[in-house]
């Protein structure tokens, strides 16, 4: 579990994070959503220590990341895996060397043991027979998979993903989301995902933090989003009129006001739909 308490971060005189409070649960896919520029990437980078926060606390299972000793932080980092927006594979190395790198660095295993683990995780992310390929020889979706494999090879307790499905087609996005979700469950990882992909929100949004201009605006689950009356959130999630209508429909359906099996024209004629739910 990771907890944020009043995290503030600014660049020069521009305050990007204005006191963020949040809780990310173990064994769940925790989502950070928000418009472009709302500070999602900055927040993740602060959490993994790539950026220094101005004030606040970042608690990993209760201990503050900011004030812990250098040695402890190093150990903690070995329990953190991260999938970067651009995959960030080492392009001088093959896929196999990329995934093996953390093992080379931090274990004293034999080459056989390392290879076994590498092949296991590569298989887990559905990549076989690409061990000898270089990053520039594989597709964007495959790169993400290699990135995931590299991030989980040391069996991390915490997994950070910055827009894992940016630049991927909807189907591949879904597969990557599912993969991350399954891996989270299998290994009881605290997973934190930055996204503005609404499919992901609905599919794997077990615990969602909505960030707006560096401040947490809303927290909840994917189910709750559907019924939320939070105006900003609704405008963000259901950006198009079509989706807004679809949301209203779904809300009405859940409450038994409308019945999906009935003919839509009939319902509209009855006029019972004019309940004004959700759209405020």
């Amino acid at each position, binding site marked *: 579990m990771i907890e944020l308490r009043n995290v503030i971060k600014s660049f020069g005189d521009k305050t990007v994070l204005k006191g963020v409070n949040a809780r990310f649960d173990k064994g769940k896919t925790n989502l950070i959503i928000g418009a472009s520029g709302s500070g999602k990437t900055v927040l993740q*980078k602060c959490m*993994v*220590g*790539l950026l220094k926060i101005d004030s606040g606390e970042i608690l990993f299972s209760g201990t503050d990341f900011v004030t812990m000793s250098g040695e402890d*932080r*190093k*150990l903690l*980092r*070995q329990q*953190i895996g*991260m999938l*970067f*927006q*651009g995959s*960030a*594979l*080492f*392009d001088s190395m093959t896929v196999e060397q990329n995934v093996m*790198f*953390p093992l*080379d*660095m*931090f274990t004293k295993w034999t080459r056989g043991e390392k290879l076994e683990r590498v092949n296991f995780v590569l298989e887990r992310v559905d990549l076989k027979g690409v061990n000898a390929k270089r990053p520039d020889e594989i597709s964007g979706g495959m790169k993400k998979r290699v990135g995931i494999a590299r991030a989980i090879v040391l069996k991390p307790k915490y997994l950070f993903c910055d827009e894992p499905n940016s630049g991927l087609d909807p189907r591949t996005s879904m597969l990557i989301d599912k993969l991350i979700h399954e891996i989270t469950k299998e290994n009881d990882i605290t997973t934190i995902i930055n996204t503005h992909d609404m499919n992901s929100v609905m599919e794997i949004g077990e615990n969602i933090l909505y960030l707006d201009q560096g401040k947490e605006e809303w927290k909840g689950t994917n189910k709750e989003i559907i019924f939320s009356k939070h105006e900003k959130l609704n405008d963000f999630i259901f950006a198009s009129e079509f989706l807004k209508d679809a949301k209203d429909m779904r809300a009405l359906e859940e409450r038994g006001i409308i019945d999906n099996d009935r003919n839509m024209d009939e319902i509209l004629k009855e006029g019972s739909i004019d309940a004004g739910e959700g759209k405020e």
Partner: protein
Amino acid sequence: MKLFSSFGQYLLMLRGAARKPENGKMYWKELMHQSVEIGFGSLGIVVIISVFMGAVSAVQTAYQLVSPLIPRETIALVVRDTVILEFAPTLICIVLAGVVGSKIAGELGNMRVSEQIDALEIMGINTKSYLIAPKILGALLTIPLLVIISMVLGIYGGRLASALGELVAGDAFDRGLQNGFTIKNVYIGLAKAYSFAFIISSISSFFGYYVRGGALEIGRASTAAVITSCIVILMVDYLIAYIFL
């Protein structure tokens, strides 16, 4: 002002690079890799430049030696000293600043921009000691060797040009070479080589490591690395000449 803060950042980078590495074996592997990249990668150009610069210095010395009172063997001696003291260390290192410097800055810049450095950092690796120190050490290992090769080949090129152009015969040239030779000059040449190796590798690393932005900035950083290295090399060259000669 900016120059001072950059210099401070540069010193901090060097301090970070001097830290103890996480895993000696991986570090060693990277050092070997860099030594091969820098050393072997530049051998060809060093060979070509050295032979020609020796040849040119022989021809030019002959051209300037108009007095019949001065023996022709003197050409050998002049070639020897200019090659050892100046041409081999300085000229070669200026060229290497271009070849090696842009490679180092480009490599690190690309790793920075594509977040590979962040990825290493997150794993808990000190990227300054893992990425920069092997480059500096690799340069310190190989560049002085290249300079020694260049000294030998430069003198050989001078001898070749003298024979070809019938300026001095081979045996007279060899006699001239032994005339008034002091090992001190070789030491000064090597002192330059070590200084320049450090300058090239550390300055280029600095520009590459702290790139911000995208592909355009990588190009700019490479150019800035080469230009800065060259200027610093020439300043230090003057300083060493002033102190030791």
